[in-house]
């Protein structure tokens, strides 16, 4: 049987036009809400257009009408069967104080894993520098870390010039963007089943452990803490959270011990990954600012005790924020 195409189009065209108008409105106003009557009408139009598509596919191979109907049905299908939360107006405060810390806690095991890998890297780097100080050029990629720590501390403390004078802001911007790129890269490497993310976290740990042991062995622990703590207590957790996001992606890819399909696993975590990485971006903006404007100044300009105290306060506040903010008393989430 071949359908009477002209009669079919003439009869059904008003239905398609009405559906198209409703779809255009829904797509243009994502925050708009339909009344119950409108929802019922929308569903009715969708079902009728879908039935038209089935008829034209079965009884006529007219491709243009079929493509037109396929497009309409595809758009309506996305609107009707979408069960995920519809986008809302941007609520930055709600996101900052609730969504972000809640997401972090929801995937705390991935964070612990990320932390464990970094600690393993730290131990490796620390032991390597302790047992083989000549390995310093291999372990530390930055030239300013290759000098004797005691000499560097003496130079910094005796310096009368502000070496960042006139480019503190640009230095801060470079730190922010560079660290954010490294974090995104750490996240993205989760697609290598987590191997790349683990390597990045371990390598960061190696550098951190090697630098720490190098300065501690040289008797410069106070300088080390005063230098690293003001920005490091935010920057290091930022990299760890980026690692957490990368591992989250890797766990979803591997899906060990889970019966949910591959696509569903990825769909479940995509929102959380975006939340975590936006949080990392914010943390690194703060860390970049502090590193350029505070961390690079040492005694006698700023007492080490003041810098260490600042770092401790930051750490405690940040820990409390991640542990408590947005916590629902009833659910404990």
């Amino acid at each position, binding site marked *: 049987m*071949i359908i*009477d*195409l*002209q*009669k079919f189009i003439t009869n059904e*065209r008003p239905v398609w036009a009405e559906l198209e108008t409703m779809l255009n409105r829904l*797509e243009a106003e994502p925050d708009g809400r339909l009344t119950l009557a409108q929802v019922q009408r929308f569903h009715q139009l969708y*079902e009728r257009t*879908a039935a038209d*598509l*089935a008829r034209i*596919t079965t*009884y*006529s*191979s*007219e*491709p*243009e*009408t079929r*493509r*037109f*109907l*396929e*497009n309409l*049905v*595809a758009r309506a*299908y*996305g609107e009707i*069967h*979408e069960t*995920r939360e519809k*986008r809302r107006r941007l609520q930055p405060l709600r996101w900052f104080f609730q969504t972000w810390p809640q997401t972090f806690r929801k995937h705390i095991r991935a964070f612990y894993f990320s932390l464990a890998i970094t600690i393993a890297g730290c131990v490796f780097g620390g032991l390597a520098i302790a047992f083989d100080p000549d390995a310093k050029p291999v372990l530390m990629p930055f030239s300013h870390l290759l000098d004797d720590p005691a000499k560097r501390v003496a130079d910094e403390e005796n310096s009368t010039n502000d070496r960042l004078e*006139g*480019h503190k*802001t*640009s230095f*801060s*911007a*470079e730190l*922010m*963007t560079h660290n954010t*790129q490294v974090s*995104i*890269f750490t*996240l*993205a*490497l*989760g*697609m*290598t089943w987590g191997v*790349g993310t683990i390597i990045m976290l371990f390598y960061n740990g190696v550098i951190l452990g090697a630098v720490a042991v190098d300065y501690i062995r040289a008797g410069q622990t106070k300088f080390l803490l005063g230098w690293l703590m003001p920005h490091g207590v935010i920057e290091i957790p930022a990299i760890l959270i980026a690692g957490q996001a990368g591992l989250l992606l890797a766990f979803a890819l591997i899906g060990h011990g889970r019966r949910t399909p591959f*696509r569903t696993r*990825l*769909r479940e975590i*995509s*929102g959380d*990954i*975006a939340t975590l*990485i*936006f949080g990392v971006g914010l943390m690194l903006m703060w860390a970049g600012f502090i590193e350029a404007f505070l961390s690079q100044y040492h005694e006698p300009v700023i007492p080490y005790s003041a810098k260490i105290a600042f770092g401790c306060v930051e750490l405690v506040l940040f820990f409390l924020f991640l542990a408590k903010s947005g916590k629902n008393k009833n659910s404990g989430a």
Partner: protein
Amino acid sequence: MKTSTLNIRTPEGIVFSQVLAGPIARFMACFIDQLCIQVVLTLLGLVISLLALVSFNFAVAFYVIGYFIVSIGYGILFEWSWRGQTVGKRLLRLRVMDVEGMRLQFNQIVVRNLLRFVDALPAFYFVGGVTCWLNSKCQRLGDIAANTVVVRHPRIAEPDLDQVLAGKFNSLRQFPHLVARLRQNVTPVEADLALQSLLRREEFDPVARVELFGELAGHFRAKVEFPAEANDGVADEQFLRNVVDVIYRTKT
């Protein structure tokens, strides 16, 4: 198995398909987007050079942050505000969509754009290109993670059947029993072949068109033998129009 279409079956049992974009088309779109990014960065550089007159330090900082935001945010901003399209994709009529036909979410756009860092490795999107080539849905790593695909988005317009279904005199309609037999014998594929040949009439070379219409008319004449008065003085193309008319319009 690698296919060029994505078929989605709705719970109502309706299947609709989307044509997937291949790696070459996607690379071209990406190239256009990179050009757009360069243009924006050049303009940003010009504006910031004015700021440098006031403070070189601030100018450098703004450029560094601006460069970062433009290069990362370009894809996210455009794909979100243009429902899955960037400038390059719009020019080549491509669109990002959810792999299951659902509404594209902001999170998906963020994830697929951030994963460009891996897809772009080691250079010129080699990893992404190879993955796209091998993947059955032409997805790069970012698409796999975000559950998205890039589809071709042809210009959709209501079909115009007026030129083939004009209400002129149709000699075949004088023989309703033969018309009924013809409708019964013609398969949908044959009917579509006749319809498409008429719809695409202007695309054919004149000689090829006469030849094609001749062959098709011969094919349909063999299906049902109409009396001579139905065919006398009727050119092959007109005969084909008459056939399409009686097949697709049951009533005059």
